[in-house]
């Protein structure tokens, strides 16, 4: 029961309170780039969720089974990038073979996840927050993906409606998007400090 509560709290914490996009400002590039349409944003969110879960789990194992016993924590960044890039390649091949329709709809975004800093950030955060339980690390990684999906979908929903709004000319395009992102972040600041 105790573990379950911890896991649930971890999940809610990473989704809402420590949301990677809103409070850590990670993964801003796809957050602004792919949030034009809500269906594409959702697809990107799912892809990130999948990769981040895989990468978080793999890097946790790598860290605890190889790097820490061998005193090689300095190589953490390079190793993590290696794991993430490999995982993305693997996912890409798998999707191409078994879900070609999904693969087509992801298009360029799937390889782009490799350079999504939210994923590397999450892997490093797991280490920084001193998570020493595999289950917790998996839940945290999955939650981070869900948090990203929520963030990007909210943004896409707002931007779809923003297209119809009469935005002042100097603010059209990127400026209003950035302002929207700032206001959204402010709204999510309300959760700050609820857990942890």
């Amino acid at each position: 029961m105790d573990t379950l509560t911890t896991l649930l709290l971890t999940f809610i914490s990473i989704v809402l309170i420590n949301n990677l996009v809103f409070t850590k400002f990670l993964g801003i590039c796809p957050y602004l780039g792919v949030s034009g349409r809500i269906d594409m944003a959702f697809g990107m969110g799912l892809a990130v969720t999948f990769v981040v879960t895989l990468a978080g789990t793999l890097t946790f194992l790598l860290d605890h089974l190889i790097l820490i016993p061998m005193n090689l924590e300095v190589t953490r960044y390079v190793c993590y990038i290696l794991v993430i890039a490999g995982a993305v390649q693997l996912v890409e091949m798998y999707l191409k073979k078994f879900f070609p329709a999904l693969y087509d709809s992801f298009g360029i975004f799937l390889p782009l996840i490799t350079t999504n800093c939210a994923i590397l950030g999450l892997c490093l955060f797991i280490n920084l927050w001193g998570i020493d339980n595999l289950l917790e690390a998996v839940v945290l990684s999955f939650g981070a993906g869900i948090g990203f999906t929520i963030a990007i979908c909210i943004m896409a929903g707002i931007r779809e409606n923003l297209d119809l709004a009469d935005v002042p000319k100097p603010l059209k395009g990127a400026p209003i998007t950035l302002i929207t992102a700032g206001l959204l972040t402010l709204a999510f600041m309300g959760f700050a400090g609820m857990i942890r």
Partner: protein
Amino acid sequence: MTVIFTNIPATLLSVIAAQAGIQNLWHCAWPAAATMLALAFVFAMALLIASEKLKVRVDAKIEQVHKVLPNLDCGACGFPGCVQYAKAVINDTNLLGKCSPGGLKTAQKIAQILNLQISDSGPVKRPIVHCRAHTGDKTYLAEYAGILSCTAANALPTAHACKFGCLGFGDCTAVCKFDALHIIDGLATVDYNKCTGCGACVKACPRNIIEMVPFAHENMLTVACSNKETGKVTRQMCAVGCIGCKLCAKQSELFKVTDNLARLDYTKYAPSEKIETALNKCPTGVIVYRGPSAPEPRPAKKPKPAKA
């Protein structure tokens, strides 16, 4: 140790120190290097096996066709992008000539890849705006202060006196991906050097005054008007409208006047003296050349003030 080192010159000392440093560094670095190499090897192997196991056989022709396409993803062919068109054209040869930006050259290249012979599908199509009225030539019943889009203005019967001509709010320029359409002094004007013939503007115009015309020659003659009112009404509202006087139809059989509006038959179009005479005789100067090097049309006469 220090006693021994004092007897040795300073340069030699630094060399030894550097060597010790490098050795020290090597002792620290080799486990890291070995781990990284091992990791990289493991991942490379995993990906190699995966790429063999999860290999997808893609028709090599798709790749080849995709290479010869212009890769503009303009959607003129009816598919979302060039990749989708490449996939479709391989299975259905009827789709061969659909790429208008690529034109005949691309069609021929695709045909070569697919081992097909194609006949000349005719000249490339380019849009012509069937209106030549600039701001000064038009008559306005009231000042329009609504949403600045042709579709919105077209919903109002009184936006312009002319119910057929160009509204000049630029719905067509907004959809043009190639910066080939501009509103110049209240009239949509095609930049034929940039136009790829994708036909997006034709769909965007709420008044349907843009037509895709086979450009058999560099510059094409056109009756730049869409007004179907009688000559008298047309004259009152536009300085350069077609009044349906049939003077051009008397000169050349290429002109046909229906509903008080002259039209050219582009299937038989060929430059001749007759149509030059028709151009010069046209009382309102509505017959004009359109094309990359089209001559300036005759200046419009002042519209006659409506009789009270």
